């Protein structure tokens, strides 16, 4: 029930999937909102503190997720060959954008050699600091990849609803609860 099998996802994958969905939407909203704050707003400093702390934890979770995914059987894909390839490419792109968004965000804050504090609990050190105009370039990548990610995630949800309501398949159900 924890691990994935050929018929369905297990609780670990299901949990990580929905936690990621929640965090991605929350971080996007927070990131967008915090840029509008005035200098004297209490959240001017708290917003980025939460955004970066949660972002680093999501990056760690995503790396663990990729490892977990590789170590588990994959549920069989439903639908035509065309739909299967489309789903594969879509999911691959979701992973790429997820990682690109988080890594570029990390590169903004660490461009001057400062590490990123995670809830004042531990600090992730800066590794790459010598890309020309690093914080600006990483900033552009961070914004566009985050935007692409939430748009693609929206499409991902629509496809899930289509498979559930129109095609009457258990695509969505098996991501809600392990199927027998």
């Amino acid at each position, binding site marked *: 029930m924890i691990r994935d099998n050929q018929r369905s996802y297990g609780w670990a994958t299901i949990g990580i999937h929905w936690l990621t969905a929640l965090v991605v939407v929350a971080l996007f909203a927070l990131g967008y909102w915090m840029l509008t704050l005035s*200098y004297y707003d209490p959240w001017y400093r708290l917003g*980025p503190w939460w955004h970066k702390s949660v972002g680093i934890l999501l990056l760690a979770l995503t790396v663990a997720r990729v490892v977990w995914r590789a170590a588990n059987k994959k549920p069989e894909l439903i639908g035509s060959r065309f739909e299967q390839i489309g789903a594969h490419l879509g999911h691959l792109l979701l992973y790429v954008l997820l990682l690109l968004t988080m890594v570029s965000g990390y590169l*903004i804050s660490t*461009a*001057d050699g400062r590490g990123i504090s995670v809830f004042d609990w531990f600090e992730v050190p800066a590794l790459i600091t010598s890309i020309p*105009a690093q*914080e*600006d370039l990483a*900033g552009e990548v961070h914004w566009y990849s985050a935007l692409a990610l939430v748009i693609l995630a929206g499409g991902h949800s629509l496809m899930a609803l289509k498979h559930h309501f129109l095609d009457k398949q258990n695509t969505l159900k098996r991501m809600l609860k392990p199927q027998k």
Partner: protein
Amino acid sequence: MKKLLLASLVSASLFGATAAQAEDYVIDTDGAHAFVQFKISHLGYSWLLGRFNDFEGNFSYDESNPENASVSVTIDTASIDSNHAERDKHLRSDDFLDVEEFPEASFESTSYKPNGDGTGTLMGKFTLHGVTKDISIDVKEIGSGQDPWGGFRRGFEGGVTLTLADYGIDYDLGPASRDVEIFLSIEGIRQ
């Protein structure tokens, strides 16, 4: 004898030439012996210091006619450096310098009023954030002379206080942080 005469003629004409006309200097940005720094209050409690790393310019200065001095400087606004990547990114954004829209700031002098004591006032047009204003920079001559490598150098320092809102930069940093003090340290190599 002929050679000696020729040499003295040549040197006399060279010295004559340098004394009679303005000397042109290129600001030594290659060797980083010139600085464009700024200072702005943080909340009214302390100073925030920063600088522009990339700029270029030249000046001409004639010791016997200092009132004819002129200066021209162009600053790459994206090179702002306050020793904090996130803050620099914010300063480059359209909340402040908007470096995509306004990649350059520039200063062109219009006149120079020497006070006769090694200080003076340099008037000119300063363009920042697409807005051009007349400013006057308080100038102090630091020194001039041969450098150890066969060249001739001359240096000045300058100071001016700018009000950010005058240049359309109106992000609210608080009542103590409306003005920014600019400190210039300029060394030129005679051409």
